[in-house]
C-alpha cells in the first residue's frame, strides 16, 4: 500500500514539476527564427554565422537558428515543414518562382512591399522586384541575380588551336577536339542527372534553339522541331562529357571543371570561389564566355531572395531581413562568392567592383557581372508570355531531366522522348488553374 501511494505521489509530483517548471522558461522566451538556406559553401556558412552574431548584437530578443539544405532538396524540405505546419520563417535563396507563386496564392507568405519601400524602392533593380510580385504582394525580396556562363580552359583551347566558342557549332567542334578520355579530359559537361541543373541546362538549350516549353497561351509546346533540335544537340554534347553525367547536379558540374577533368562547364559565378579555394592554378587558365547560341542567344536568369513565411514570429523575421538587406550586409553575403550573384541594390555595386577578385580576374567576371538582356526566367519565357502558374506542376515532375535521361542514358530516339515529355507535361498541367 505504501509503495503504491509513493508511486502515485511520484507521478503527481512529476506532472506538477513539469507544469511548474515550464513557467519560468516561458517568461524568458525569445522569438526563435528558423533561417533555411541552400547556400552552404563553408565560406558562405561563415558569413551566415557572422550575420547572425551581428544581428544578435543589435537585437537581443530574437534568436536566429540557421538550417541548411541542398538546392535540389530545398523545396522538399519546405514542403515537409509546411505539412508539419511549421515552415521556416525565412528562406534565403531558392529561385523557385513557381513554388513561391503557389505559396503566395495560398496566402502563406508575408507581403514584403512595405519593407522594400522602407529600404528605398528606387535603389532596387526594378525587373527583379517585378519578377517576385505575385497575387498582389511582393512575395520575396531578391538580393542578388545571376545567370550561368561557359567556363573555358584557355590553355587547352590554345593547345588545340581553338578559339573560345560563341555558337553551338563552334562549341560542338571544340568539345569533340578537346575530349580525350585516355588523359581523363572531356570537352563539355552537360548534366544528365535527375536534377535541377539538368532542367536549367536543357531549358537554356531549348530557348537557344528558338523553342519554348510553354507557348504564349501557356499550352505545352515541347513537341516542336526546335525542341527536337535542341535535344539532339544536347545528346551530342553529352558524348563529350564525363561518363557519370547521369548523376550530375550543380556540385558535380563545378567539381568536374575545378578538378581539371572537364575543359568547359556551364556554371554560375560560384566557380570563381571554387577555383580560389580548390584550384588556384587554374585561375590564370580560365576565361568565361556567354553560353553559345543556336538560333538565338539565351540564358537562364535567376535570383537569390528572401522569403518570409507567415507565422507568429513573422514580425521578428522581417526585422532580420531588414538587417540583412542593408548594403554592407548584402555585400557580406556576396563576398564569399564574388561574381556569383550580382546585387539587386544599386548601392552595393560600387563595393562589389572594388573586390580584389573582380579587379584581378576581368576575363572571368565581366560576363558574370555586366547586365545582360537575354536572360530568361522559366516562369516567363518571353516578354509576350504571361506569368506561368503551371510551371510549378511541370517542374515538380522532373519532366525535362527525365527526357534528357531517356535520350542520353536510355538511348531513346529524340523524337520519341520529346513526344513522351510533351504528353507528360500536358498530363501534369491539365488540371492546374490560375
Amino acid at each position, binding site marked *: 500500500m505504501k509503495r503504491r501511494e509513493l508511486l502515485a505521489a511520484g507521478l503527481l509530483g512529476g506532472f506538477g514539476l513539469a507544469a511548474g517548471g515550464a513557467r519560468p522558461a516561458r517568461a524568458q522566451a525569445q522569438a526563435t527564427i528558423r533561417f533555411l538556406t541552400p547556400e552552404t559553401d563553408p565560406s558562405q556558412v561563415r558569413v551566415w554565422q557572422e550575420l547572425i552574431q551581428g544581428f544578435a548584437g543589435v537585437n537581443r530578443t530574437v534568436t536566429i537558428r540557421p538550417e541548411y539544405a541542398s538546392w535540389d532538396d530545398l523545396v*522538399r524540405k519546405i514542403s515537409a515543414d509546411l*505539412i508539419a505546419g511549421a515552415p521556416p520563417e525565412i528562406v534565403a535563396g531558392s529561385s523557385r518562382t513557381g513554388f513561391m507563386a503557389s505559396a503566395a496564392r495560398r496566402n502563406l507568405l508575408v507581403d514584403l512591399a512595405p519593407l522594400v519601400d522602407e529600404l528605398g524602392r528606387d535603389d532596387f533593380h526594378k525587373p527583379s522586384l517585378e519578377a517576385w510580385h505575385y497575387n498582389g504582394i511582393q512575395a520575396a525580396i531578391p538580393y542578388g541575380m545571376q545567370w550561368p556562363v561557359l567556363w573555358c580552359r584557355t590553355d587547352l583551347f590554345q593547345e588545340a588551336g581553338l578559339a573560345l566558342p560563341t555558337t553551338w557549332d563552334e562549341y560542338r567542334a571544340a568539345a569533340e577536339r578537346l575530349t580525350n578520355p585516355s588523359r581523363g579530359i572531356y570537352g563539355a559537361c552537360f548534366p544528365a*542527372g*535527375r536534377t535541377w541543373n539538368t532542367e536549367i541546362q536543357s531549358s537554356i538549350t531549348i530557348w537557344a534553339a528558338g523553342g519554348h516549353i510553354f507557348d504564349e497561351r501557356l499550352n505545352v509546346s515541347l513537341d516542336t522541331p526546335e525542341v527536337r533540335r535542341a535535344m539532339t544537340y544536347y545528346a551530342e554534347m553529352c558524348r563529350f562529357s564525363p561518363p*557519370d*553525367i*547521369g548523376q550530375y547536379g550543380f556540385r558535380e558540374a563545378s567539381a568536374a571543371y575545378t578538378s581539371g577533368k572537364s575543359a568547359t562547364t556551364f556554371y554560375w559565378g560560384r566557380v570563381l570561389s571554387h577555383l580560389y579555394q580548390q584550384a588556384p592554378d587554374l585561375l590564370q587558365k580560365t576565361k568565361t564566355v556567354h553560353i553559345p547560341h543556336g538560333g538565338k542567344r539565351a540564358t537562364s536568369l535567376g535570383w537569390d531572395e528572401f522569403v518570409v513565411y507567415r507565422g507568429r514570429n513573422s514580425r521578428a523575421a522581417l526585422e532580420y531581413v531588414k538587417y540583412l538587406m542593408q548594403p554592407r550586409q548584402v555585400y557580406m553575403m556576396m563576398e564569399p562568392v564574388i561574381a556569383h550573384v550580382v546585387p539587386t541594390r544599386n548601392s552595393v555595386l560600387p563595393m562589389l567592383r572594388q573586390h580584389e577578385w573582380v579587379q584581378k580576374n576581368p576575363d572571368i567576371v565581366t560576363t558574370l557581372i555586366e547586365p545582360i538582356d537575354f536572360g530568361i526566367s522559366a516562369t516567363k519565357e518571353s516578354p509576350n508570355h504571361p506569368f506561368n502558374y503551371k510551371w510549378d506542376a511541370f517542374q515538380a515532375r522532373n519532366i525535362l531531366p527525365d527526357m534528357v535521361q531517356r535520350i542520353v542514358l536510355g538511348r531513346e530516339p529524340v523524337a520519341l522522348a520529346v513526344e513522351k515529355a510533351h504528353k507528360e507535361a500536358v498530363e*501534369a498541367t491539365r488540371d492546374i488553374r490560375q
Partner: protein
Amino acid sequence: MAPNEAEAALAREGGASWRAARRAGGLLAALRDQHLGVILLLPSALTFLVLLVFPLGYGIWTSFFQRHVLDPEGVWVGLGNYVWLFGNREFWHSLTISTFWAGATVGLQIVLGTAVALLLHQPFKGRSLVRGLVLFPYMMPVVSVVLVWMLLYNALYGVINYLLVASGIVGAPIAWLSDPDSAFWGVVFVGVWKYLPFVVVIVLARLQVIPQDLYEAARIDGAGAVARFLDITLHQIKDVLLVVALLRTIFMFNNFEIVFLLTGGGPLRATMTLPILVYEQAFGTYELGRGSAIAVVMFFLLIAVMSVYFAFLRKEPD
C-alpha cells in the same frame, strides 16, 4: 471451505475493504487504490496511440484525399488514389524494383553472412579482433557509407575505376551509378556491405550454442563435412535464419536512405524503389494522398509477408 465459498468470501472482503476505505479516506483514496494499475499503464498506452496508431490511421485517412502540400485540406476522392495507383505503370515498376532489391540484398546478406559467421566460428589467431572489425560497416552512419561508396564508384577519381583501368580489365571508366544497367547492382552491393554484419552477429551467436556432441556423434556415424553442415549446422540455425530473413526483408523493403542517397531512384528509374516513389509523390509532385496510398499498400504487403512467415512457423514442429 469450498473454492466457490472462498471466492465469495474474498469478494465480500473486497467489498468490505472498499466500504471501509470510503469511510476512512474518502472516495479519492478508494479510486486510487482500485485504479492505480490502469493509471500507471496510461502513459504507455497513450504513447502507443500517439506514436503508432495515430500516424498509421492518419496515413490511411490521407490516402483517401487528393491533397497538395500547399493545400492540406484536400478533396475527398475515396479510393481514387488506389485506382490511380493500380493503373499506374510506375507503381508496378517500383514494386518490381523493390522486390528485386529486397530479394537480392536479403539473399546475399544471408548467404554471405552465414559464410562469414561460419568462418568466424573457427578458431584462429586474432579471431576476436576480426569479429570486432566485421561489425564496422554496421556501425557507420548511412550518410558516411554512401559518401565513401560514391567516391569509390566515381568515374573520374574513384579507386574502383582506377584499378580496373590501370589493370587493363576495362578500357574506360565505368559510370557505375549513372548507367541504368549497373546502377541497381551498385546499390545492392552497398546494401549488402552495410547490413551483412547484422546477419553475421546473429548467426554466430546461434552457432556458439550448438551442442558439440551432435558433431561428435555425426563423426562417429561417418558423416562428412557437407553432411554435418547440412544435417546439423543448417538444421540448427534454420529458425534463426528465418527470423533474420523476416526482419531483413521488412527492413530492406522499407529502406530509403541508401538508394535515395546513392542514386535518388535513377538513372532512368532503374533503382526507383517504393519508398522513393512515396517520397517523390509526397515531396516531389506534392501529391500527399497518392504518396500515402503507396505507403499503405507497402504496409499491407509487409503484413502479408509476415502472415506467411507466422503461418510457416505455426506448421513447424517444436
